[in-house]
């Protein structure tokens, strides 16, 4: 008889809070008042903040549950914080955005919460099966959310594309899990590591690693699995684009780093050589194609691909320095990217969302504060000190130089210089050109403004006082890398 596994739900508490809030939103959705859904956003926000507080409060604790399938450690908690920040900012940005576009609904908030729960679970997965389940929970919610604007053709296209390619990628991931299970006899990360260490390198494990990298590569949108990103980013509601660009990317990195450095440590020479190439190709393709974009959402999509390339250099560098630098980078990147998408979500022209760079001509004259805000987010994405983007790049590339990958860093830095061109082009339009045609309208939004203010404080704080956060990131990854 198989003994029932010991149930210790407390390890899962942050995830459970988010799931509970999601269920609560679903119930409240059918109760009066039926005309306004604003309060549901408040419930969702409260749930995320509660999970955030619990995650922060648990810092330093360790735990395992469900036969080591779910882990509670500093690493998971650090990602919980990143993801909760991302989700909270997205919910705040969504409130007025949805009302303005006429798509306010209860299921939106519950799906965001479900996706958030999936992301958090990915960060605490100690078993490939949980990785897969959590990934699906996140992905399925996001597929639906991408198609939320039912009447808009691009939104439907985004959803369909995301779903089809995502399902394809998930099957690669599952196949990789199956191969690794076949070779090592376990799906548990620690046991895979032990078995691989005992048996030595096996072709089947390597094949499994390759397939896993395809699956993760899709979720983090690394080249050549990035094709979906521009279309999905463009078509999805801007608030959801922000969530896909930050939360889901962070979660995929969380699972990927843990799987690679814990379970597949033995094959590090193989995957790090592969990732070296992937990193270079990803950052270069992302930056070069971004140069040609005039749609801001597509430009940010390619820019986010480029940033994935930078982050992969940390994984190539290896060690707690490299992995810790990725964590810090993700934190900085989350604030910056959500901020940039948040500004776009506030701007509209002739009733349509203002996504063309030309729409932003002369923004600095009419809305100086908003233009300065977007400008600072873009400067942080370039990596101009003293903003968060610079310090996070510094940590990341520092770890790669330390590990001896000088040429990789040279390529990455030259890429950053190329990237400056397309980010600066937006600033050129905002500050140096005059508007043509109908002027742009900026929706007043208290929650959205607050979210932007938080993100702005975040990038300035992380830029000027990075030490405590970077040290936390190092502490979070240190136990993984023994």
């Amino acid at each position, binding site marked *: 008889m198989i003994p029932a596994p010991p149930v210790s739900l407390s390890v899962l508490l942050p995830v459970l809070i988010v799931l509970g809030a999601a269920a609560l939103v679903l119930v409240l959705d059918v109760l009066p008042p039926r005309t306004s859904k604003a309060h549901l956003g408040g419930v969702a926000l409260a749930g995320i903040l509660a999970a955030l507080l619990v995650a922060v409060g648990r810092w330093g604790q360790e735990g395992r549950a469900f036969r080591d399938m779910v882990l509670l450690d500093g690493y998971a908690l650090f990602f919980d914080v990143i993801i909760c920040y991302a989700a909270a900012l997205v919910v705040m940005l969504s409130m007025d955005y949805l009302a303005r576009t006429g798509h306010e609904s209860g299921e939106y908030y519950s799906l965001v919460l479900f996706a958030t729960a999936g992301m958090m679970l990915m960060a605490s997965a100690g078993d490939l099966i949980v990785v897969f389940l959590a990934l699906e929970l996140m992905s399925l919610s996001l597929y639906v959310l991408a198609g939320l604007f039912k009447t808009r053709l691009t939104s439907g296209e985004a959803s369909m594309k995301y779903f089809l390619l995502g399902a394809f990628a998930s099957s690669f991931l599952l196949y990789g899990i199956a191969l690794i299970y076949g070779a090592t006899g376990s799906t548990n990360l620690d046991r895979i590591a032990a078995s691989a260490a005992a048996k030595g390198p096996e072709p089947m494990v390597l094949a499994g690693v390759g397939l896993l990298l395809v699956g993760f590569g899709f979720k983090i949108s690394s080249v050549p699995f990035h094709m979906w990103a521009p279309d999905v980013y463009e078509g999805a509601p801007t608030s959801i684009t922000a969530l896909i660009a930050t939360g889901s990317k962070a979660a995929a990195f969380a699972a990927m780093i843990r799987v690679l450095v814990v379970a597949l440590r033995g094959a590090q020479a193989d995957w790090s050589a592969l990732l070296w190439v992937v990193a270079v190709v990803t950052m270069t393709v992302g930056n070069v194609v971004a140069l040609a974009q005039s749609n801001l959402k597509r430009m940010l999509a390619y820019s986010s691909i480029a940033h994935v390339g930078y982050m992969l250099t940390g994984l190539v560098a290896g060690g707690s320095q490299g992995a810790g630098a990725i964590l810090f980078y993700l934190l900085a990147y989350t604030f910056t990217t959500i901020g940039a998408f948040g500004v776009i979500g506030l701007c509209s022209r002739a009733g349509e969302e203002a996504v063309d760079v030309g729409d932003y001509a002369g923004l*600095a004259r009419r809305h100086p504060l908003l233009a300065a805000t977007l400008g600072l987010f873009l400067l942080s994405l370039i990596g101009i000190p003293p903003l968060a983007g610079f310090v996070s790049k510094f940590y990341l590339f520092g770890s790669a*130089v*330390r590990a001896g990958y000088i040429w990789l860093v040279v390529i990455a830095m030259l890429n950053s210089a190329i990237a400056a061109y397309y980010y600066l082009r937006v600033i050129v339009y905002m500050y140096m050109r005059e508007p043509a045609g109908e002027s742009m309208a900026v929706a007043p939004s208290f929650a959205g403004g607050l979210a932007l203010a938080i993100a702005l404080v975040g990038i300035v704080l992380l830029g000027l006082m990075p030490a405590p956060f970077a040290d936390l990131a190092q502490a979070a990854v240190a136990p993984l890398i023994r």
Partner: protein
Amino acid sequence: MTPGLLSVVTFLPAVGAVALALVPRRLEGVHRAGALLVAVATLAVSIPLWTGFVGDSADFQFEEVFRWLPSLGVSYHVGIDGISLLLVLLTTFLTPVALASAWYAIEDRTKEFVITMLLLETGMLGVFVSLDLFLFFVFWEAMLIPMYLVIGVWGGGNRIYAAVKFVLYTMVGSALMLVAILALYYQHGAATGVYTFDVPALARWVLPPGTAQNLMFLAFALAFAIKVPLFPFHTWLPDAHVEAPTAGSIILAGVLLKMGTYGFLRFCLPLFPDASIAFAPLVFTLAVIGIVYGAWVSTVQPDLKKLVAYSSVSHLGFVMLGLFTLNQQGLVGGVIQMINHGLSTGALFLMVGMIYERRHTRLISEFGGLWKVVPAFSALFLVVVLSSLGLPGLNGFVGEFLVLVGAFQVSGWLAAAATSGIVFAAVYLLWMYQRVVFGEITHEANRSLADLTPREWAMLVPLVVFIVWIGVYPAAFTGKTEATIAALIAQVQSKASVALAR
């Protein structure tokens, strides 16, 4: 902990910028006056740096060290020596002049303009006072953005092209410099066990000569050479200068270009002595090419501002020549020439801006016979032109003479070629002056030009005072810097010989 004098000087403009950001936009007069007040206050606060500086000492003075990112070995370490002292004062001196020059010239978005200029001043001062590579890089990159905005928002017709070109050139250069900074940091850490970005600590350590040192030198040198600009990295400069507003040109020529030469002095020479010696002939040659090429191209410019811009390529060539002679006369001359160029070329841009404000053209062919209409302007313009071409008794002569004395000790032929640059300088400057000021009035619009206003007098007189002062009694300035230069040369030579002895 109380911030020291140097931090006050550095951050006072930024604090002023934040304060002005809170003032409503429509109070343009408050913005103009407030910014000028802040800049003058910064100048006033920086004077004790000069009076309190001990010229006999080669040590860093007014030092402040606070731990910033202890886990990385980054600290907020600032201090000045005989080289940075002069550049800090040049910056605090030229910024109020630039702000005053923009009093009427900048009418659009005054608030943003003055805030940008003040942030730029903090960035520039930060570059000159930083003694930590991380801190230096932060200021180095951060000051790009205000300058980019000054050119791109308040510049001329082709301003966007010029601004983007300026930023991209600089960013490519500094991208590789950051890699070299990281490489140096880890190599030093691995060799000594101390991971630090502290410049004096890194400079004390002897980096083994070889490919690694050469590559790091080249990475730093590229960033600085673009900024100087050393031939053939100069192509951004004419665009940036021509499009920038007068205030931007003054700061760009007066201070920003010096960051490149300062970088060579502060980082390349002491950190990579062997590579510096190895590459000195290359730099030397490029400097001489720049001197002659800049002078020739200046000669044929129809546009006053472009002429002055190319003359900067020529003059900065003298600075680079001086620095890479690696002897006392050459280096002192190079440092003085940095200050001279800041004063003379800053004044030239200022005066070109003054006639542009009156006539809205900068074409030399549009002028002629100005002496009859605006004698005071023409007289001061003559002083500035003569200072720029190196007339004995004015500041330009001192620097160029010392540089050439140093250069002749290294290579007679190259020094002779460089000397021809002085002759050509006389050609393009005097010919320009002749066409603008002498002769008959050929354009009716020039008959009604107004002579200098009190505001313009107030800007020009201090500049001319320094031009004459340095020319007549340079020891007041060289005295502050000689001890530092001697120590720097000793350091370079001792490190290079230690490396040879291994």
